[in-house]
């Protein structure tokens, strides 16, 4: 056997990897460094975001409300009212031109801010109660009193309080951050001027009270009986939770309230400009066969395009003002350059790479302003921007260094528009910036050939250097160049954890199975955290959630649900007393029946939400940039796009639920050592006083995530059953209801607000995240991947598999990194859908020291010695931390 050299190892496909387009830019040279001043500027930008404070801007809310009030009773359609309101915003908002900008355009009048989508009302309750201390005190008192009454009724205040104390002592995060206002709180603070706050509280919010979409949605859900009575009681009683991003339908099912994630058709606006799009609209309007509604929709689209144009022209005007008053020649040059671009795009087709970037940024910002944090994601930027990059390169107008600097700025700016003023109650479970507006790279072209190009590499290097949290979703297939994956491994080894890797095989197939045409399936991009979609052709997708462990709890209690606040009778279906079942299969079947009922509830809620959006808040701003809407003359909320999705995320969690069922199978149905009632009694006591049962549960070997066939089979049966059920439904926009397995941060929140579970998980502790295992035994990362790969990924449109790796486990040198690439490819070949490695840094290791039970799976691997970090003595851990900081 020849000792291995770097060249001798072919990749898994057995082909020595080549790189598409073999010029120097595509090889794995060391990270491209922007010019010193650019690098400084980018680092400063990042620093300003990371250490700066966001300001709540009232301007958009004020202007929108102004217009909305004015158009009341004028007989305009909802879509015209929306288009008119946004036009009014674009016509009057102030623009910020920051000295660190080379890409112009912000969504508020300040450098770092957050507009308020007051008409949707997602955060209205937060703003009503958490801007002023006295409002917080009043709201909190009221909430405590009604919660107290609820608890007294349900199960006794004393035991609840003592349980919460126990949980806190065991390290559970506090349920809220006290009485700190949005401005005073430590995590994710928001400043607001006194004047703006007054206006919000005394004029704007009162107008939208019970008028906002979320307010009306709650009424409709209640009226339609889609929310369980128990949940209604609970929601009324526990009014301290002002968050409305998610509404609870039952203890095991939730609804998302945003209109949904979407990727606009950037390629077309780059190609045609706004003028070209407006021309398309005008041509459609000339058709005499249009219905009145279609005509109205198209007119709203025209007004919207005009609005975005106005946005960019006024931005250009602001730049011109500044340039005129600028004494410094160098700075004036910069301003003139930006002015030039903004005068041209997005009104007209882009001519250069810089204009292309500027164009998509303005469109995205203007549209995001219309529905903040819908998440408007960028899609396949290495494909969309490539023609402009290539022609600039050929003409000598740009070099890779300058292009990378622009991309770095773009990634940071994307990050700055993914923040939200979440309520204090959830503050400890949130953070400020979300990476969930990803850029998708590589993958397949529509014709099936590999899509990797020079820009792909540039984006990877840019992500690594600028360290924005913006996710980089890399599509991987057997033709993906080894070099690209090795570059990513290198970046990960050096500390960047924003890469997610997606299996083209499983995702393209999943798209096909949900009705996407072959070429559109190949063209998939990622939006939100991990959700696949056809960019530019798919209407917004709002993911709801089915909480798997709570669903099991309801099944075990024959339809009742137990929460920390007490027992909620009849929360689900009566599926039978598990102690009367003779076999485990009967329990599993009962669980699936319970699940099918929950899915029906969720679909009804989701369709109710989508219909309300179509009625009350159509989205002409999205429709103007969505393939199909102009042609059909139908708004995206009415199903005008070529495709449309609604989604259910099966979370919280696959691992805990599988393990619980596995344990019950072994201990109750096979060995007959305990009854389900005994298990429930132990759960209700958080295992205190039930040590024998707890020990028995812990000792059951072969739990999920270790590549054991029996538990893998249970996980597969659960997911097949539930995911399979979604194929039966259509959404309100006549598209499919698809399945996901992504928990975001909800596994911590839901875990905090849940009792113990039968797998041995204690009350108030997090569930496993997304597709991660909970009880990792000795099988290490290969066991995890084998188990995860056996889930039905071809029926899931997005999942997250978070693997924590110390840099040494990715590899200190090329040879070792090729093995990581081989690991990834083998996992994908086994059917795994996704992998997002978190590279452990010193901070993570410090956290692991504090809460080792959350880091049981963290492997630190060096040379011939590898171990779980949490098993090491303190001093050794300190040493590794120090070592890790220096990139060892």
């Amino acid at each position: 056997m020849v000792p291995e050299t770097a060249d001798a190892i072919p990749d898994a496909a057995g082909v020595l990897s080549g790189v598409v387009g073999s010029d120097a830019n595509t090889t794995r040279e060391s990270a491209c460094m922007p010019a010193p001043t650019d690098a400084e500027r980018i680092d400063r930008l990042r620093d300003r975001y990371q250490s700066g404070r966001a300001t709540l801007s009232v301007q958009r809310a004020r202007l929108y409300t102004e217009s909305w009030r004015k158009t009341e009773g004028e007989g305009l359609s909802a879509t015209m009212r929306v288009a008119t309101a946004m036009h009014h915003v674009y016509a009057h908002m102030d623009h910020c031109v920051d000295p660190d900008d080379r890409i112009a355009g912000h969504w508020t009048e300040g450098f770092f801010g957050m507009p308020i989508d007051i008409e949707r009302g997602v955060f209205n309750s937060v703003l009503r109660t958490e801007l002023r201390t006295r409002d917080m005190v009043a709201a909190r008192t009221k909430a405590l009193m009604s919660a107290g009454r609820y608890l007294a009724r349900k199960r006794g205040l004393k035991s609840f309080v003592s349980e919460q104390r126990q949980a806190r002592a065991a390290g559970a995060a506090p349920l809220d951050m006290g009485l700190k206002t949005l401005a005073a709180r430590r995590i994710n603070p928001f400043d607001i001027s006194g004047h703006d706050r007054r206006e919000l509280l005394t004029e704007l919010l009162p107008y939208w009270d019970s008028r906002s979409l979320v307010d009306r949605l709650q009424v409709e859900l209640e009226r339609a009986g889609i929310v369980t009575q128990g949940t209604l009681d609970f929601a009324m009683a526990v009014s301290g939770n002002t968050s409305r991003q998610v509404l609870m339908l039952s203890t095991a099912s939730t609804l998302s309230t945003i209109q949904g994630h979407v990727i606009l058709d950037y390629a077309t606006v780059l190609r045609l400009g706004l003028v070209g799009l407006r021309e398309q609209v005008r041509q459609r309007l000339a058709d005499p066969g249009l219905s009145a509604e279609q005509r109205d929709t198209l007119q709203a689209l025209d007004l919207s395009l005009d609005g975005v144009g106005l946005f960019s022209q006024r931005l250009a005007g602001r730049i011109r003002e500044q340039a005129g008053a600028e004494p410094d020649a160098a700075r004036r040059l910069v301003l003139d350059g930006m002015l030039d671009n903004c005068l041209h795009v997005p009104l007209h087709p882009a001519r250069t790479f810089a204009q292309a970037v500027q164009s998509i940024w303005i469109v995205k910002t203007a549209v995001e302003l219309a529905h903040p944090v819908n998440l408007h994601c960028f899609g396949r930027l290495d494909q969309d921007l490539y023609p402009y990059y290539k022609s600039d390169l050929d003409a000598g107008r740009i070099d890779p260094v300058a292009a990378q600097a622009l991309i770095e700025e773009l990634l940071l700016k994307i990050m700055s528009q993914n923040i939200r003023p979440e309520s204090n109650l959830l503050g400890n479970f949130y953070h400020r910036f979300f990476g969930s507006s990803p850029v998708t790279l590589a993958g397949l072209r529509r014709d099936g050939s590999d899509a990797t190009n020079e820009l792909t590499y540039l984006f990877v290097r840019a992500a690594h250097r600028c360290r924005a949290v913006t996710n980089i979703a890399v599509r991987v297939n057997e033709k993906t160049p080894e070099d690209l994956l090795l570059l990513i491994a290198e970046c990960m080894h050096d500390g960047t954890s924003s890469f997610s890797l997606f299996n083209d095989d499983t995702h393209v197939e999943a798209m096909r199975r949900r009705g996407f045409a072959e070429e559109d399936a190949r063209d998939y991009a990622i939006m939100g955290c991990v959700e696949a979609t056809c960019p530019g052709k798919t209407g917004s997708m709002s993911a709801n959630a089915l909480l798997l462990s709570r669903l099991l709890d309801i099944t075990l209690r024959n339809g009742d649900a137990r929460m920390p606040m007490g027992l909620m009778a009849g929360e689900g279906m009566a599926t039978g007393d598990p102690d009367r079942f003779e076999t485990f299969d009967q329990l599993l079947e009962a669980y699936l029946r319970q699940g099918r009922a929950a899915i029906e509830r969720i679909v009804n809620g989701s369709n109710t939400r989508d219909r309300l959006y179509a009625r009350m808040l159509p989205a002409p701003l999205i429709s103007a940039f969505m393939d199909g809407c102009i042609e059909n003359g139908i708004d995206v909320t009415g199903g005008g796009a070529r495709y449309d999705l609604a989604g259910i995320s099966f979370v919280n969690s696959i691992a805990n639920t599988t393990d619980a069922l596995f344990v019950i199978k072994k201990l109750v149905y096979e060995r007959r050592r305990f009854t389900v009632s005994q298990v429930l009694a132990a759960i209700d006591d958080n295992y205190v006083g039930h040590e024998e049962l707890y020990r028995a549960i812990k000792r059951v070997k072969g739990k999920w995530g270790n590549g054991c066939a029996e538990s893998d089979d249970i996980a597969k049966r659960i997911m097949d059953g539930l995911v399979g059920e979604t194929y039966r439904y259509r959404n309100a926009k006549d598209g499919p209801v698809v399945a996901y397995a992504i928990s975001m941060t909800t596994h911590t929140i839901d875990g905090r607000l849940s009792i113990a579970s039968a797998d041995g998980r204690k009350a108030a502790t997090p569930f496993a995240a997304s597709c991660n295992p909970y009880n990792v035994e000795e099988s290490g990362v290969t066991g995890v991947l084998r188990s995860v790969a056996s889930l039905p990924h071809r029926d899931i449109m997005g999942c997250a598999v978070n693997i924590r790796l110390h840099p040494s486990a990715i590899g200190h040198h090329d040879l070792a990194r090729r093995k990581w690439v081989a690991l990834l490819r083998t996992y994908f070949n086994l059917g795994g859908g996704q992998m997002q490695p978190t590279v452990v840094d010193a901070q993570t290791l410090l956290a692991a020291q504090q809460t080792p039970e959350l880091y049981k799976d963290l492997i630190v691997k060096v040379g011939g010695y590898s171990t779980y970090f949490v098993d090491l003595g303190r001093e050794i851990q300190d040493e590794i931390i120090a070592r890790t900081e220096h990139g060892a």
Partner: protein
Amino acid sequence: MAHEATGSVGVIFDIQRYCVYDGPGIRTGVFLKGCPMRCFWCHNPESQQCRPQVRFLATRCDGCGACVERCDVGAIRLRKGKLLWDFEHCNDCGECADVCTENAFARIGEELSVAQTMERVMADRDFFAGSHGGVTVSGGEPTMQPEFLLHLLRALRQDGIHTALDTCGHFPGRLLPQLLETVDLFLFDIKHADDQEHQRATGFGNRRILENFRDLLAKVGSARVTVRVPLVPGFNTEPGDIEAVIEVLTSAGYEGEVHLMPYHGWAKSKYESLGRFGDYRDLSDTPPADTDRVIAQFAAHGLETRLYG
């Protein structure tokens, strides 16, 4: 592929997946318990004793006391919520590990048949195939269980799995022919050229090791051998020591890569977990400058090196 009961049982203390520094590709490491040597820098003290043992990790103990009741020889006491383990009186029966839910007490070393070992190892066959990897048998010193070792290697070969053997080289010469038939790659430790220094540091001289090395190289050449040199400060990192090792390699005709393993002081907790508080030698890490110099020395003689760790 089924493997008949060979009547051969081995004591294994670890099976590690996704090993990337133990031979080509992704490998699973099978670690056999038992080693004749007692190298003073040993990172895996739990590998030294042949028979199964118990280890205790205080950080995982939640003070439930279930083990106290179970222990037949009274080697465990609970005092003020803190667990005290009297390892002198411990008989390594492992009952405490059986009741411990937190994995604070755990058994180290399990008796497994070849078939059982193969079942665990072959679960990752797809990862071997996708990376041209395989299985590395290590330890302890795997040749201390020669019957089990050979049966295991044959079973792996039968299933088309690439085999690597990580050995200190101290085994009877008559084992070599059978190893040659069953091992694709030898990972061979060369610690020190001087017999007496070697004895002082490990408990054994190096004559048999060097004999085996020369024999091996003569029979299969550098293609199937990779030399590994641990860099232990105060023992073998002086320029003279390294030159002597280089001389051993070059005179035997070795032309392959030399894998260097700089020392890291990470094993202290392992010793403590076995109750061997006095045995851990607190050495400083190998200074990077020394490692660089060693690399240069090898390079000067045309020998390429690779750093692990």
